[in-house]
């Protein structure tokens, strides 16, 4: 089963995908397997973050910006400096996740949520969820 989620982001925003992933797994009717979460963008990332304190999302984005600041001398100048930084952040964070499915639920820890990290924005974005039995 393949499910597509579409959503809009804010500039450097963080979007929670957890509930939609849980719902997709449930709708698949698959008891045991793997859930692959994949985004089709090069200036965004998908990752797992603790959801208890929302300021933690800002910390993640702040630290990524500290490591990869938006600077004017990126070699990639086809688009904007922010776009060039976004490509590097996206490469580091990654564009997919694999989550174990057990008892028709994604096997996430009690603090774990799946989040889409926007490194550009505001943009219209999409995410694919594929659930494989096994």
């Amino acid at each position: 089963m393949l499910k597509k989620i579409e959503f809009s982001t804010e500039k450097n925003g963080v979007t929670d995908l957890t509930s939609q992933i849980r719902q997709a797994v449930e709708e698949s009717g698959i008891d045991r397997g793997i859930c692959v979460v994949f985004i089709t963008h090069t200036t965004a990332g998908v990752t797992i973050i603790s959801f208890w304190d929302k300021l933690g999302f800002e910390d993640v984005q702040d630290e990524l910006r500290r490591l990869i600041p938006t600077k004017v001398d990126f070699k990639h100048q086809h688009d904007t400096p922010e776009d060039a930084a976004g490509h590097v952040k996206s490469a580091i964070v990654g564009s997919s996740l694999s989550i174990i499915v057990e008892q028709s639920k994604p096997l996430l820890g009690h603090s774990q949520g799946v989040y889409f990290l926007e490194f550009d924005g505001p943009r219209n974005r999409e995410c694919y969820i594929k659930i494989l039995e096994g």
Partner: protein
Amino acid sequence: MERQKHDSEMRRQIKQAPSLLKSLYSDLEPKARYALTTPEIYGIKRIIITGCGDNHGAALTTGRVFEILTGCVTEVMHPLELAYYFPSWKAGTGPKETLVIAMSNSGKTPRVVEAANRLHSFGAMILAVTGNTLSPLAQASDKVLHIDFPKLNPAPGTTTYGAMLMACYLLAVRIGEVRLKYTMDTAGMYRNELLRLLEETEQSFEQWDETAFSIAREYKDTVLGEMIGSGLDYGSAYYSSAKLYEAAGIPGIVTNSEEWFHIHCFSKLINSTVTAIFNHCGNEAESRSLELTERMKHMKKEFIYIGNGQCRHATYSFYMPDTSFGFLSPFIQWVPAALIASYLAAIREEPYHRGFQGIWKEDEDTPSSWNSKIKGTEEKMHC
């Protein structure tokens, strides 16, 4: 039938301009994208935009666009001002913090070359927008944005004007995009809108052409053109006045809606003047343009309206395509005015530039727009 009889090279070029500009776009957009590096774009503190004749009109039209999109202080300056009166301290103290966008199709316009030389000596970065990469202007510049114009038959400039506007719009959109004034998606929307406006122009052409011919027939004996525009619309008025001179030999004054009340409304040539008001929806001084139309109605003065709103007092109206981005409106406003000039020329049997005959003959012994001594050299600049 009668309209067809008054076809001309100028009119044919206006008609093909939208499709030619669409084909130029795919070449020009990447060139504008790479004309300046990201560090250069971030180093700009002020922009000066300059050109002679039609290109002065293009500068007047797009000067504010640069300011709106890039957030940089932008000045529209005539090359004569830059070449003779501009003090070095106004170019700033840092290298290349002033960007001069110098427009000349041939790249040989003497004052523009002079202005580029002078500002370059003051440490400004010169970006030539030209159809000639080997020209003196290109050589005097740090960067060249080459517009690959096709060879056209001699006629007053129309497509070249549209191409200069397009080049400037693309540069402004690019600088604003890189400076993160808006998102890449928004920049893409601005670029696509330029193409959409050209398509809409193609669709409206027949109707505009018919109206332009009716106006030219009615005003065939006119002695004066009065072109009125404010803010972003002033450049269209300037260009339209230039076409009346060039194509039809009719003097054309250019003014804004405020000055008209102070000076031009005292003219006794009420209806022997061809008067056009340019106003796009969202023009910040639109209220004054509305007052202007009220006053003209009171004076029983006929006028032409060129814009994307409604003007109930106008004798003739050219409705421009609507756009969500008002600053893009002037991109195509020049088309109806150029059509009127082309039909006036045809009906009055006026040859382009008076046929360069008699007192209008231009040779190497006659000072002209192209024949002028370049300051600092003993050489004359010749096209």
